[in-house]
């Protein structure tokens, strides 16, 4: 197991580095002078030409691309991602204050999507080929097909406007903050994100459960006197969980994509909303910082998936 993990890690790291090169290429493709992204606007505006030239040299902007990449990359690793073109703040702190809400949304969204997927998947497997199964399949297809933003709009229409149950935007009400208020703001976005994300899981869980329920060892368990419930949970479900975990880890980037859209529709102050507003305002340094974050996230989720794959299946673990 050890060598497998190490090998996968190396591959993932190499891929990550290559991605950073690609991102770096974007830095240069972007219109405008790279220097504007790399030093605080205060310095840019007030500094003399000499000062700016000096800075340019310091940041390696007058040297070969490779050196530039090196400067940029090492800076990034130290947490210096340049400065926003719009408000001059360091990109890292901008992203930093947005990470929390996004993680919150993604986390709760993931949990909800699993709840939905598992309930639908298990019921569909138990009531195979009946109307219930059919309905569950249609729901999961709907989750995959109907764009998340449209579901969000419909959700807002129903729950915020028609039934006046939940707020339609933001993360909290500044005039009446509190736990309940936060939860009320979180429910709709997380629920819709969860629904949109549940489709692929549900299909997988359904087919996995069917295989498990039909398996010879499920039959053996029944022959030993286990109740149907016990067979479902202790044997079938447990065996289904194993591959599902790996899939979850591998689809974390998809979850982020959904979160970005949800944040936009619900004006949720997370990284996704920042990314979109930076695109609309041509704030290149923020965009590039965001690109690096995505690359890192993909790297981490792939690593996690690889680790889980080996840890969780004893057949692989003992190889």
């Amino acid at each position, binding site marked *: 197991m050890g060598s497998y993990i190490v090998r996968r890690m190396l591959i993932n790291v190499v891929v990550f580095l290559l991605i950073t090169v690609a991102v770096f290429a974007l830095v240069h493709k972007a219109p405008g002078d790279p220097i504007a992204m790399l030093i605080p606007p205060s310095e840019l505006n007030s500094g003399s030409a000499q000062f700016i030239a000096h800075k340019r040299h310091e940041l390696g902007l007058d040297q070969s691309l490779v050196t530039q990449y090196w400067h940029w990359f090492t800076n990034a690793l130290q947490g210096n991602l340049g400065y926003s073109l719009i408000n001059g703040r360091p990109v890292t702190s901008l992203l930093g204050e947005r990470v929390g809400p996004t993680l919150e949304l993604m986390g709760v969204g993931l949990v909800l999507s699993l709840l939905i997927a598992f309930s639908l998947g298990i019921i569909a497997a138990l009531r195979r080929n009946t109307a219930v199964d059919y309905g569950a399949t249609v729901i999961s297809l709907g989750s995959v097909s109907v764009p998340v933003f449209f579901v969000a709009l419909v959700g807002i229409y129903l729950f915020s406007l028609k039934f006046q149950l939940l707020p339609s935007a933001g993360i909290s009400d500044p005039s009446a903050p509190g736990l309940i208020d936060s939860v009320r703001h979180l429910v709709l976005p997380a629920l819709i994100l969860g629904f949109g994300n549940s489709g692929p899981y549900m299909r997988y869980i359904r087919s996995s459960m069917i295989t498990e329920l039909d*398996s*010879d*060892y499920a*039959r*053996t*368990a*029944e*022959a*030993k*006197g*286990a*109740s149907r419930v016990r067979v479902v949970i*202790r*044997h079938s479900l*447990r*065996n289904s969980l*194993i591959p599902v975990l790996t899939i979850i880890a591998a689809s974390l980037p998809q979850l982020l994509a959904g979160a970005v859209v949800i944040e936009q529709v619900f004006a949720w102050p997370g990284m996704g909303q920042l990314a979109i507003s930076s695109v609309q305002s041509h704030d290149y340094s923020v965009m590039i910082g965001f690109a690096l974050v995505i690359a890192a996230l993909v790297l981490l989720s792939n690593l996690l998936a690889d680790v889980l794959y080996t840890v969780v*299946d*004893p*057949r692989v673990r*003992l190889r």
Partner: protein
Amino acid sequence: MKRRKNARAAEAAAPETQAVPLLSIEDLTVDFRTDDGIVHAVDGVSYAVETGEIVGVVGESGSGKSVTAMSVLGLIRQPPGVVRGGRILFHGEDLRAASARRLREIRGNGIAMIFQDPMTALNPVMRVGQQIVEALRMHTDGLSRTAARDRAVELLRMVGVPNPEKRVLQYPHEFSGGMRQRAMIAMAIANGPELLIADEPTTALDVTIQAQVLELLRTAQRETGAATILITHDLGVVAEMADRVVVMYAGRVVEDADVTSLFAQPRHPYTVGLLGSVPRIDSDDILASVPGSPPNMIQLPSGCSFHPRCPLARERCRTEEPVLTDIGGRKSACHFHDELRAADTEHLFAVESR
């Protein structure tokens, strides 16, 4: 031989207690709904098993032998299966009418089952010991985990798994094929069942291991005094192990006799054919096989299902379905079973001479 004598002796000694067989399958019918029609997998099957008796159930694929056995424990999935009729009496109690709860009590406890392929029949991601423990704890209230584990180790030792303390913590894929089957047997006898159903227990094993596992089954049976239904398509196994033989064809019982009588004097053409196809050390003859192919289970032949392939077939066989009749301590479902009594059955199925 000895077993049969004991059974007979017991019968003579206490006729009342033997009046009710341990298990009695009466007129069981099981259909399967498929896209192409309804498969009559089991069509009015009846046979009984006495306490301590080993009954070998033989037949080719599709004969219904496994389905019958699985129906005993209610393991047929409905749909697509449908248990249409009949009774399954265990100690006089109809299992078909039993509640789900009662069935669960009996499974793994009063009646235990051993399946064909131990690799797939054991949960691959659960430790072997854990699976045996599960069987134990489900039927013994208040059994602590430690006590159960100790018992599991004991059971593994009993079935001949070397180094059981270590093995009990391992996963099925770390066991060899023969050892896996031993573990399955351990799991089955864990709660001291009165009836063991072994569904082709050695088919998936190497020939050398087969003998060992059969020996183990025989020992287990002797030690626990359990009755056994041994399902197989291998007549050699039956000759070696069984007290009595039930021959099935196309979902029906065609012959039911004690093992000696059956082999000495089969009273159904199909049985003759099966016996003829068993290679014998003392004979040079080409093996005679039953001509034709297994019947279409959706549309069985009229009258006697075997008639298209039977050398004795006549008009009556085509129109009238033979009933399983008592013929002096044994049963046969052939209109013309009498003709087989004195016949030279070795050449019943014509063989091209060499």
